[in-house]
């Protein structure tokens, strides 16, 4: 896709995502019923879970692009991985800030070292570590290869985060959507959650494409600077 095409797609997706975000906020505050046991604080669920899903998507996408970069050595794949990791860091930060706000009311504490929280924090450090490793070497090509390995290793954390609530004793409830016997959420709540997932995914890809266009321009700028020298 050309840079102009990438930007057009980015604008379309980001606008769709922003409109979707407005609709999601309306659904959360005016449409979906309040959960009986937890009350109003349960509404954090509709941004917390989509943010978690998007951060998983980001690391999965980055791992795929990184694996292909290590194989094909195409710079565009490395750029795509880096942009996805940046988005993943934003959404993982959302997970780690909205979760404790919910946990303080539901569990009585902002933070506890239970398996899912700890593994999610590990994922956040992997996102951060990607950039540290990338910039830690004098040879940029070596940094890109090391960072690609970090992204692939980071993606291995996802199944552990998902299954930690089944394998270990945890404060988090067992999955309510991704279950072998189907979702256990009531219809209204499931629709709102799935819409939230769609909105966050659209926003992620919209902003990811913008970020990718920035890297395309940076590459062009560097090329011009080299040829001028």
């Amino acid at each position: 896709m050309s840079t102009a095409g990438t930007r057009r797609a980015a604008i379309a997706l980001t606008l769709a995502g922003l409109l979707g975000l407005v609709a999601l906020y309306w659904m959360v505050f005016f449409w979906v019923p309040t959960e009986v046991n937890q009350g109003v604080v349960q509404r954090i669920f509709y941004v917390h879970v989509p943010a978690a899903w998007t951060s998983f998507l980001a690391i999965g996408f980055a791992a795929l692009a990184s694996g292909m970069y290590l194989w094909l050595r195409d710079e565009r794949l490395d750029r795509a991985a880096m942009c996805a990791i940046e988005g993943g860091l934003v959404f993982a930060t959302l997970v780690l800030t909205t979760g404790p706000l919910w946990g303080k009311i539901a569990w009585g504490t902002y933070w506890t070292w239970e398996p899912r929280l700890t593994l999610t924090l590990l994922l956040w450090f992997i996102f951060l570590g990607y950039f540290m490793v990338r910039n830690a070497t004098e040879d940029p090509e070596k940094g890109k290869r090391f960072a690609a390995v970090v992204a692939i290793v980071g993606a291995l954390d996802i199944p552990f985060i998902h299954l930690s609530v089944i394998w270990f004793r945890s404060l988090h409830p067992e999955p309510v959507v991704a279950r072998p016997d189907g979702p256990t959420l009531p219809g209204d709540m499931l629709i709102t959650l799935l819409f939230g997932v769609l909105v966050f995914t659209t926003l992620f890809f919209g902003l990811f494409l913008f970020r990718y266009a920035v890297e395309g321009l940076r590459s062009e700028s560097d090329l011009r600077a080299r040829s001028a020298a």
Partner: protein
Amino acid sequence: MNLTFGPAPRHDTPGKNMKKFQTRSLVLVALGLAVVAATGVAQESADAVQNAGLARQNLRPYWHVFAAYSLVILLIGGWAVSIARRLKALEDRLLD
């Protein structure tokens, strides 16, 4: 008409009876007022405690939900602004 409480004293004069009746009535009214006042004060303090507790229970989750939904706008908006600034800086550099 016998206005005293309990069996009427047979040997008291009507004036003495009226005085006893007034005294007893005053004591009863005073007791009643004391009970009403005590109940009112107790009710008021219980209400205050209960209302404060309910307010804490009800408003605190609202604050947390507000903070969570504000964070979504701030973080995603912040990322978008950061990308836009980088894009503009690069476009300016390429135009130069």
